[in-house]
């Protein structure tokens, strides 16, 4: 029985050839094989969000994604958010408004925030969206929407209020891109 395969992973615009254990999660492949230690392992079972990355622009928990299943996707980690060393507005807002303390949940919060802004702009409702009909208006992004949509990302330091401020401020200024 083959337990390993050679695959290509495209991470932050760079393609890597890797021979991987089929059990290897995308999170472990990023961290252990590619040295992208920005994504963090908080639980390894999809319950904390620290490992959140973007897969073709959509947020996924990389600890519950097998690396071999991510072949062919555009993977963006926190290391790929700042283009050419320029912090994205959401990153800058996190620093300025103190949207973290220990920083361990931060890469997940940031990737999640970027993915979430795109989801909402695309008209995806959340559990607190008033009008969920297909032709309803795009939900107003208020604190309740942000909190609901970001609840998969735990922060034990309790940086939540600052994170919500940072996201709302960024969304108001820079729209969907974060």
């Amino acid at each position: 029985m083959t337990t390993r395969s050679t695959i290509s992973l495209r991470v932050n615009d760079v393609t890597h050839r890797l021979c991987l254990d089929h059990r290897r999660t995308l999170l472990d492949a990023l961290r252990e094989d590619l040295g992208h230690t920005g994504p963090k392992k908080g639980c390894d079972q999809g319950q904390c969000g620290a490992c959140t990355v973007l897969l073709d622009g959509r947020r996924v928990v990389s600890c519950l994604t097998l690396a071999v299943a991510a072949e062919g996707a555009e993977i963006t980690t926190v290391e790929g958010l700042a283009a050419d060393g320029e912090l994205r507005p959401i990153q800058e807002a996190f620093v300025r408004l103190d949207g973290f303390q220990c920083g361990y949940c931060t890469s997940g919060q940031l990737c999640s925030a970027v993915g979430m802004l795109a989801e909402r702009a695309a008209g995806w409702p959340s559990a607190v969206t008033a009008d969920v009909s297909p032709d309803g208006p795009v939900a107003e992004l208020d604190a309740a929407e942000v909190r609901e949509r970001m609840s998969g990302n735990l922060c034990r330091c309790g940086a939540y209020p600052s994170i919500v401020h940072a996201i709302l401020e960024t969304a108001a200024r820079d729209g969907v891109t974060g």
Partner: protein
Amino acid sequence: MSMAVHVGAVGVARPRIEGRAKVTGAARYAADEPIPDLAYGALVLATVARGRVRDIDVASVRDMPGVLGVIDHTNAPRLNPEAGNFFGPDGGLRLLQDDLIPHAGRPIALVVAETPEQARAAAQALPVTYDEQPHDTRLFAGHPAGRPALTLFDAPADIGDVDAELAASAVVVDERYGTPEENCSAMEPHSATAWWEGDRLEAVDSNQGPFQIAFTLATLFHLPPERVRVRVDHIGGGFGGKTMCGPQLILAAMAATRFGRPVRVTLTRAEVFLATAQRPATDQRIRIGADADGRLRAIHHDATYEISPLAEYIEGCTELTKTLYAAPAIRTALTVVPLDILPPYSMRAPGAAPGSFALESAMDELAERVGLDPLELRLRNEPGVGPVSGLPFSSRNLVACLREGARRFGWASRDHRPRMRRAGPLLIGTGLAATSFSTGAFPSTATITAEPDGTFTVAIAAADLGTGARTALTAIAADALAVGTDRIRLRISDSAIGPAWGAGGSRGTASWAWAITEAAAKIRGPERPMTATVDTTQLLGDLASRERHAFSAVFAEVGVDPATGEVRVRRLLGMFAVGRVINPLMARSQVIGGMIGGLSMALHEEGVRDPVTGRHVNADFAGYHIAAHADVPDIEADFVPDDEPGVPWGIKGVGEIGNVGTAAAIANAVWHATGVRQRHLPIRLDRVLES
């Protein structure tokens, strides 16, 4: 040095120095360090609560792919039984030394393999059989095994005649309050990588005090302290859970010794719950007697909590009871019950978090029975000196916190009768709590070196758990040296720097700042040395005897859904007196984080044990919920002017105080909303519905 007037960095709101590294993923935590030729260890935990290991069938996994070997009690290096913690010898550290199982979740083997998957697969496949013995994991006051706690701090008090004063009181509250086992649950699971460099044991480990951890590790492995070095770059939160020399480090050091190569042991989330440390469950009784006008006559606070026979521990629940209110008679006692559980240890606001829930709930009950505004009840019983010690307070600004908090919260218009307000289907209520947390400093060593390029290297074995220690100490060093922060190069988180207190007990910043300030004074002194090292042990001994505490007042508004029993916090406000604030931006974040911890304690957190097996049944974030985004409203926190005379920079420490009081304020608000007291945490839906 430039002659320009130095503009101070202390007191200025600045983003964290490491902010950019943390938002770009560049900041390295213990499990992120690239180390060549790494092997990986996976733990095997006992699944029974008490007994002996009959057999571990190592042969059946030895040939699994990648497995290098298994360490268990038959082949582990012998550890020094004298190794301990702050409270004395600690059997919790003596891993794999015998076949005894003191609690479910005790590590009984480490499987080491070439990859994490291989190690985990073999650990899961490893057959273990046990000889089980009956266990006892149920805490209650009056348990026959109960005995007095150590008296290292929060020693029993007994002033005045409590029984006579209670008998003479117009109103008496006599109630029991309970809090469950809770887990620190830092988002970063504990991780250690250990290896030998010649005859020196090196380790990268996520912990709250590298010097103390290295010292303990050296003791355990019979090594002179200078042959053990423990360091780390960033730490993903601690909250008390990384205070001790953790199983990840002890087992990684064992494996590095046995296999002669670097070994990394990173705990799974379940292992963090089952094998690191927890806040003990408490069962507390409070009796308060007062005159009809609310003046206190007596406070009696008996707190019972659980420990493990492996180690002593003090959950100082009654510290506030000796601090907050004047009364002619005060009696406190701490009783420990040794049970077959994971040894408890400090979790954020140790003692004060469960203790204040009991005391401040009881005060609210007293206000109700006397028919007095709970705010006025506190103001009426403000003491002039330490109620038990008779010592003056170094500074005490609780009244300022209460008054300013009440003003901002809009307390004056509160109708104190319960169950009077609705918002749609919800019952609305508000509550408050007053708090204190003791402050102080511990001996530490700092070294400052004036570099040829005009910068200063400031070295202290501090740890930045996310508290902002890097940023705060840089500001302090800059001001102490009267230079800009850009000329400070701070080195922390390395045991090789020298002895220093860890990040804990709300004493980190004060302890470290003191040493840095003294070293800076030497550098700027008449001899102008290029390098200066200071140990503050002597200076601390000279500090005047005072009651030293941070204070705060917390106000909460909740909405309770009578149909579902769900409690949601709608508003939360804290006013804090924490000495001089070094960096208002970070300090505010820290106390808000503490208040969220208190909210989480009030409504969500509960380590649930199956009484039949003695095991925790919710050792993950699905079963053990910690407050998430949707649970947390916008929170207001601010500081009243305060100072701490005798301590450099007037620092008191902000680490724990944020956690204190929030649970009581929320519970009191739930009473105000529903008319029913919640004396057991967390305030679960079923508890609200049943009442």
